[in-house]
């Protein structure tokens, strides 16, 4: 056993870090079967362990772990692909393009990412600086993005700024002229799926001295990002916000993150006309912070139902080819990504999945006391050291590799040469709920 370090604290951290890494390898091997208390309907024990395997190896598991769907009984878990007969699959050697553009307008900066996903906004405070760094490093490695979330922009992220989206939310934490100027993409967070219409809330226990300094507030006091933007009560007001960012940084692309109300399609159209390049619709299955259980379960529709609604309306309005639609809040697997795209999204935004790759067991204690016992959703000085940013970046990077591999396999079986061809192809999906076997609609 290794327990290197000068101080006792360093040696204790080294001991537990090593034990954790051993555990992340051992459990997915199923040598101890599945942990009986692990998982839930959405993230089953199999999905968690399969994600650990992918983060370790860069490939999906081959030992029988279910790595495609959970057991929620609906949504992505009830959708399957209508694959072509084997003889019509594209050959292995044929290149499959998984890239997507993040600006579909004929003007403004052209940004292309090689995979149809980037990292979700998770604030400093809700996660540790180590995790932010790990995500930024992985984003740079894959030439994609991660988002700062609304908790400030740690200095350590500056070297990765070409791959960091600056989030502007109602608390305006960390929103400064330079953080906007650094960002290739600026993201407005109007709402988030885990607590739609309720704003953000960082509990006092997690507002450490460092977090408070970053957010320019008082340590150990709960911080609210009130809902909504008190300066925005219409699409016109929203446009003013976008104009304000464009005035500071004309070259930045603008993303708008919204939840999934009944009129989410109208919201998307409004955002487009206000000048947004990317519309992110966020479902309730993600989130790392404290959120009322009543909100997660009951307010706003699941992302699987919102994507086709928005896509269809953008098509009807004749603007679908000018705006990028990204889905987030419940994207767990490569299959989920492919299904979201087939339902109408251009790509997806990953948050919880990356944390699971880093060892999250989905225990839902992110907000309790010192925060995550695995050092993920915490700013506790000791616990956060359990994750080394380089180790974390490698895990996320491996997960991305596995997802790309699977996505290409899906496209190959569907006879598609590019992920962009998959967008809105609901005719390639079958919705199978228990006792029902109905085809999805034609696109």
């Amino acid at each position, binding site marked *: 056993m290794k327990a290197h370090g000068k101080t006792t604290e360093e040696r204790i951290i080294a001991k537990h870090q090593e034990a954790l890494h051993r555990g992340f390898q051992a*459990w997915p091997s199923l040598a101890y079967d599945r942990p009986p208390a692990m998982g839930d309907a959405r993230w089953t024990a199999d999905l968690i362990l399969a994600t650990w395997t992918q983060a370790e190896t860069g490939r999906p598991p081959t030992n029988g772990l279910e790595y495609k769907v959970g057991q*929620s009984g609906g949504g992505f878990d009830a959708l399957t692909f209508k694959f072509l007969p084997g003889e019509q699959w594209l050959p292995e050697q044929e290149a499959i393009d998984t890239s997507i553009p993040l600006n579909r307008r004929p003007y403004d900066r052209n940004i292309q990412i090689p995979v149809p996903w980037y990292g979700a906004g998770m604030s400093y405070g809700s996660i540790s600086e180590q995790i932010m760094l790990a995500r930024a490093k992985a984003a740079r490695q894959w030439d994609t993005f991660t988002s700062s979330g609304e908790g400030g922009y740690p200095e350590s992220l500056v070297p990765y700024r070409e791959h960091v989206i600056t989030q502007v939310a109602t608390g305006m934490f960390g929103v400064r002229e330079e953080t906007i100027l650094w960002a290739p993409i600026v993201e407005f967070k109007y709402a988030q799926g885990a607590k739609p219409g309720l704003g953000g809330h960082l509990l006092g226990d997690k507002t450490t001295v460092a977090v408070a300094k970053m957010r320019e507030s008082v340590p150990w006091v709960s911080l609210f990002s009130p809902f909504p933007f*008190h300066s925005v009560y219409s699409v016109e007001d929203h446009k003013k916000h976008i104009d304000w960012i464009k005035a500071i940084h004309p070259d930045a692309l603008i993303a708008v993150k919204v939840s999934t109300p009944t009129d989410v399609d109208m*919201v998307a159209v409004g955002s487009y006309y206000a000048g947004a390049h990317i519309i992110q619709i966020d479902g309730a299955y993600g989130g790392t912070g404290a959120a009322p259980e*009543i909100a997660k379960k009951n307010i706003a529709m699941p992302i699987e139902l919102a994507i086709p609604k928005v896509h269809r309306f953008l098509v009807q309005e004749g603007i679908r080819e000018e705006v990028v639609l990204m889905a987030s809040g419940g994207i767990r697997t490569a299959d989920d990504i492919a299904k979201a795209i087939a*339902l109408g999204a251009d790509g997806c935004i990953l948050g919880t999945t990356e944390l699971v790759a880093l060892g999250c*067991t989905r225990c839902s*204690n992110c907000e309790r006391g010192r925060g995550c*016992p695995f050092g993920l959703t915490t700013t506790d000085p000791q616990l956060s050291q359990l994750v080394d940013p380089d180790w974390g970046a490698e895990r996320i990077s491996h997960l991305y590799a596995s997802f790309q591999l699977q996505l290409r396999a899906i496209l190959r079986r569907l006879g598609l040469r590019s992920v962009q061809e998959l967008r809105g192809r609901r005719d390639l999906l079958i919705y199978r709920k228990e006792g029902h076997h109905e085809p999805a609609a034609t696109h």
Partner: protein
Amino acid sequence: MPDPVRFPVDDAFEQAPVAEARAAGGDFSLAQSLEVVVLEQDAPSSNAYHRYHIETQNTPDIVPLPPKFQVKVKKHRLIAMVLKELFELKGDLPVALSRPCVYGVFSRPVGGLAPREELCVGCLRCTVQFPGMVQIYPNPERQRLGDSLVRPEDIDTILYEARTGRVPVRGAGYRGPFGGEGWDGLWTDMSEIVRPTRDGIHGREFISTAVDIGEKPAFLHFDEHGEAVGPVPTMIAAQVPFLFDMPANAARSKALLSIFAETARQIETLALIPIPSVIQFSLEGQHVVPVIAKSTWSWLDRLSWSPCMVMLDGWDRECYDELRRRFPGSIACVRVPMDTDVLELVQQGVRVFHLSANYHGYAGDRFVMDLILQAHQRLVETGVREEVTLIGSGGIFMAEHVPKAIICGLDAVALDVALAVALQARFNGECLDRETAALSFPRLDTAWGVQRLKNLAASWRDQLLEVLGAMGLREVRRLRGEIGRCMFQKDLEREAFCEQGSEL
């Protein structure tokens, strides 16, 4: 409690207060005649601003719950590992004895040899680190709580709410199934940009959770002097849209009913109590609603005070008329099964209904959600919805069920099983209806019980505020029947996944 001025709604009572007042030459203005009775605990002075608030206080369980998880440690392996580490680390005790749990499960001096299971939150860090040594299991004893409808996790949630009075908050996203049957197949709306100000520089804007229960004629009629004649509104304003329903037949102890009545008084709502219990236990007050059935009619003679509202259990034209005659100043409510044709009773003069289903939310073979929608819609279509109050009960046992039931068309709900769970009642088998439910309550202390129910009410009210705030609504009255502000799973799934016209 202010002395209310009330008016009847039909011809039989036409000579009541307006006419009497006029005959007496009194100055009886419309403002007075439309007075709504506000149920209050301690009436503030008329000039004082009274912002409704429920006092919460941490009120621990009196019956210890089994731990959520079992922590099984292979002790011989643990001892061997510690010895090995001590050897490899050259006696570095702090490192060798450092424990993986941040919640104190291994915080006893002997650590993992005697884990404190009650502290385990199921994070699994210990088992991830030491798979061959520690295993965490869901505790089967805990899994047995509740019945086929009220799941162990629901019991946990209600107990947390009753213990703390707080809104249940957890990290990470939603963990449950995709939608589901009954209430789970309905999502409420939110607004991206419009909502009452919350926690901003102007503080938290007030959202009203008060509801009106009573008789509300569509039009007022005035005589040549400008005085209101004929039916005028007679209402009670309860400060929360939930009432306390009668407990299961086998659980009607004095302690329990006293807790209901006192809590109703303190939070300014109503407790529905069978009339024999009202008399036997000397329960009295404007927050007590005597429930009278034909079989308990004889007890009515012993009721020496005039309640705000009386409830007739089961429709009977003669009994209803007699109640109206005996209590001209009271609101008369009729309790009928949820699948009753309410329109028929409206035509017979009834304006306040308690629609009841069994504890699992069924009347006949239909779930309450569909039945409420149907009853509400029928009243809307015939243009009388605004004149009628619909209270509903059955299958409403979680905080989210309250706004959902109101969206479907109720004015207020009556709580049943949730109250029993908050008071730590144990389910003995299926808790299906009032007649057969076997609930065992612990020995109830009134102060403890009242605070538990106040905590539950505060938590549910706060959760209702979250839902209303997210929708941009400033009062719960506006939520009633707003089905345009909710989403039904079956509709959305059909729209998203099905060929036009095909059924899921």
